[in-house]
């Protein structure tokens, strides 16, 4: 029974902005946790700089009664720890938005570029933090009270959230933060935001417990569950979280993580582990993938399994390290010297990150090839609520791995035996009788170096043939939306969320659209070029300047004439409305003709 007159909180978008180090992310994280506990699904995003303190940064949250893996174009609430942050994000506000800002240094000036109608609430956050706790950073906790009151959390809920968040930091930290929360409540009272007088009523229809997880975490978790037992890496934004999760967890699975001195060492340590028969992964992004190119070719030639995560960031070169991009697609698909088999998988959400990592581990081991997990900063680092993963669905396929008994029954063991699939059975080092030579030089079936041209031809064919034999096991695209729709989207990674919302927004306007969600980029499976022939108005949505994904599809027989490009490479995540606008303008529709 809903007899409240307040707006139903089914879609709340909050941005918390300030100087780097102001703790915007902390505020958003606590808020995400509270709202998730209330049954809403949440999604959070960050806009940070490649520096540790200072500069204008923000964290954004969306709480939605259902799944939404992107932020809306309409921000309901902005919290600004620094007034200088307001103009940077003001364009995302509208007449109904509310802005809470730190008024310690005075009231807001006119330069803040705010739209008409915005409701402003100045609170001297920093002043009270310093006054009461001698540390500016407590403004976070103070602000939280104001936010909570505003959106209608009760003080008890906020306290529970603080217990959860700060409890593990020790009693004193908890106490100070709770005190700060109290200070905030008082300031909220002053600002007229009293208990129970929140602006919204939270409406949630899904009461099950969700995981709150990033793509990077889901890849790491998937790897551990899939039996991954060795990880070597070198820190690089935005992939580092994969290593950090594994540092904490992999030992509990019986595995080991080694931070290497560079990416060359990382991939070669991983090779060292992989050749013992251990499931192995490394994670990096553009600059690191570039450095690993020689190692990747070695995997292809020497037939060594490995999963390699590319959490793509804005390139080229060092680029914009904290910003998203999808501009390594070419490098993943075409990189490496010489011809060798490889697989590139592209999940669209954290759950898929988990499941495709399991697939990646299986394919890598079974076919003894490198398998890339093609992510991007958004998918890698943004958090989303996910239905608890069904662990019992995980299937491990170790391919032709031989134990001592199996080896002993063979007449002859050849490390690179020619087979129908292209992959040879493998006896891990330590197995009596299974000795073999593994090498990145061309070799015969035993692994002895050979330049015999007949052998060469057979070995090239063996390796290339894997690309054919594995095809039936590779993830096909998923088609979302109305299959007969004339408008189709293609996009991977962080495009997933905006495309799905765009389809909904278009539907509201009476325009039917569908989403052909490619999941295997290499080898390009037949369903994707086929889709481009079937659907007359396709929008390939991607984060790069040269339409790498669209060109990849076209190079594999995709219908160029049906394809339009939506490209973004300025480091800013797209919003669903951007796609809607593109579709409408491309189809020469006026906004008011539709809907």
């Amino acid at each position, binding site marked *: 029974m809903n007899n409240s007159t307040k707006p139903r909180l089914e879609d709340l978008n909050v941005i918390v902005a300030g100087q780097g180090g102001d703790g915007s992310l902390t505020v958003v994280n606590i808020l995400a946790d509270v709202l998730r506990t209330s049954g809403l699904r949440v999604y959070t995003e960050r806009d940070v700089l490649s520096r540790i303190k200072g500069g204008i940064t923000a964290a954004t949250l969306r709480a939605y009664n259902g799944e939404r893996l992107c932020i809306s174009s309409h921000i309901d609430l902005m919290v600004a720890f620094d007034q200088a942050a307001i103009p940077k994000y003001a364009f995302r506000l509208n007449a109904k938005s509310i802005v809470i800002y730190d008024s310690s240094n005075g009231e807001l000036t006119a330069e803040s570029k705010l739209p008409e109608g915005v409701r402003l609430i100045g609170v001297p956050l920093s002043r009270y933090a310093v006054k009461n706790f001698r540390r500016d950073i407590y403004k976070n906790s103070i602000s939280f009270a104001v936010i909570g009151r505003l959106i209608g959390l009760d003080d008890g809920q906020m306290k529970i959230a603080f217990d959860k968040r700060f409890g593990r930091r020790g009693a004193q930290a908890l106490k100070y933060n709770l005190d700060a929360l109290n200070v905030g409540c008082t300031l909220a009272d002053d600002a007229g935001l009293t208990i129970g007088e929140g602006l919204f009523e939270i409406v949630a229809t899904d009461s099950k417990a969700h995981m709150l997880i990033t793509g990077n975490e889901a890849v790491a978790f998937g790897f551990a569950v899939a*039996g991954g037992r060795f990880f070597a890496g070198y820190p690089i934004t935005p992939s580092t979280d994969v290593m950090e999760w594994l540092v904490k967890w992999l030992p509990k699975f019986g595995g080991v993580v080694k931070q290497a001195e560079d990416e060359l060492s990382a991939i070669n340590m991983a090779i060292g582990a992989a050749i013992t*028969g251990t499931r192995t992964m490394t994670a990096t992004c553009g600059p690191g993938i570039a450095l690993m190119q020689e190692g990747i070719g070695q995997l292809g030639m020497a037939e060594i399994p490995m999963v390699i995560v590319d959490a793509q960031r804005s390139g080229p070169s060092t680029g914009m390290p904290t910003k998203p991009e999808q501009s390594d697609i070419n490098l993943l698909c075409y990189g490496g010297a010489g011809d060798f088999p490889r697989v590139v998988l592209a999940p669209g959400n954290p759950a898929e990150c988990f499941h495709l990592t399991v697939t990646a581990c299986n394919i890598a081991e079974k076919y003894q090839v490198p398998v890339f997990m093609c992510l991007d900063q958004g998918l890698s680092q943004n958090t989303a609520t996910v239905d608890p993963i069904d*662990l*019992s669905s995980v299937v491990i396929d170790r391919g032709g791995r031989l134990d001592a008994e199996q080896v002993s029954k063979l007449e002859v063991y050849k490390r690179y035996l020619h087979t129908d699939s292209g992959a040879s059975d493998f006896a891990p080092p330590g197995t009596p009788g299974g000795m073999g030579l*593994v090498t990145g030089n061309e070799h015969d079936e035993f692994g002895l170096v050979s330049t015999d041209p007949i052998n060469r031809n057979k070995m090239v064919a063996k390796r290339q043939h894997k690309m054919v034999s594995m095809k039936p096991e590779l993830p096909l695209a998923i088609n979302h939306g109305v299959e007969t729709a004339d408008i189709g989207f293609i996009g991977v990674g962080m495009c997933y969320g905006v495309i799905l919302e765009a389809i909904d927004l278009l539907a509201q306007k009476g325009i039917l659209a569908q989403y052909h969600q490619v999941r295997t980029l290499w080898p390009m499976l037949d369903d994707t070029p086929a889709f481009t022939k079937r659907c007359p108005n396709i929008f390939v949505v991607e984060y790069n300047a040269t339409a790498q994904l669209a060109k990849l599809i076209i190079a594999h027989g995709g219908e160029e004439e049906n394809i339009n490009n939506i490209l973004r490479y300025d480091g800013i995540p797209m919003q669903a409305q951007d796609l809607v606008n593109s579709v409408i303008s491309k189809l020469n529709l006026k906004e008011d003709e539709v809907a």
Partner: protein
Amino acid sequence: MTKTFTPSRPIWCAGCGDFGVLQALVSALEELKIPPHERMVVAGIGCSGSLQNNLSCYGYHTLHGRVLPTVTGSKLANPELTVVGVGGDGDGYAIGGGHLVHAFKRNPGVTYIVMNNGTYGLTKGQASPTAPTGYQDNLEEDLDPVMLGLSIPGSTFLARAYSGQPAQLLDLTLAALKHTAEGGGMSYLEVLSPCVTYNDTYRDWRTSVYDVDAEEGYDPTNRAAAFTRMQELREEKRLPLGLIFKGQRHALESVALNKDFPAPALQDIGRPDISGVCNDALQSFIR
């Protein structure tokens, strides 16, 4: 018995120092009764980098310069293997120089044998990092990798042999393998191994080698004293041979692995422990 590859005949030039290294390694592995299937021999790229093809073992031919990260990974994944890295001076000190520093620092339980001939044999005789000033227009001062090893606080076993003195070479190979087998961590053995084709140093080296094993009062457990002696001998243009330094530190794998589990390579991962650790991890995301 399952048949597998027959070790091939070395492809080295007649007289190449690397024959002696192969001989010593084979003898030492046999003397220590390490069966072929427990040997993991990892070789770099270069003339030296074909040694693994010439004995019974699990062999791996790395990328140029990557022997040490590879063996570190192999040992961590399966510490039950006897892991031996071999390669050349170009491989180990030029392109692989950074890894050498970090391997000493990590002290993984591997033996690393460098066949130092002061040149890039396989690419036809360019100066390597141990080539003296003047060799092939080399303008740089040559590196002494043993001194480099001494300067890395994590290093635990540093020795040098000469393939022209096979008895000591065998002794030091044995000592290196034992240091590692006993949990001492990385054993590093540089072998002066002349390249008869591009840098025939037999004549030079025969007279300039100097055996610290035979020197009275030489104390291989004193890092600073060893360094001083190396420096002196260098100034005298002598090439020190012998066990130059032996220190104590835990091997990397002894502290890096979770002892509640078998080695990573040996775990049965076929069925994930979904009610145990997998679920714990899952719950940590629900919080």
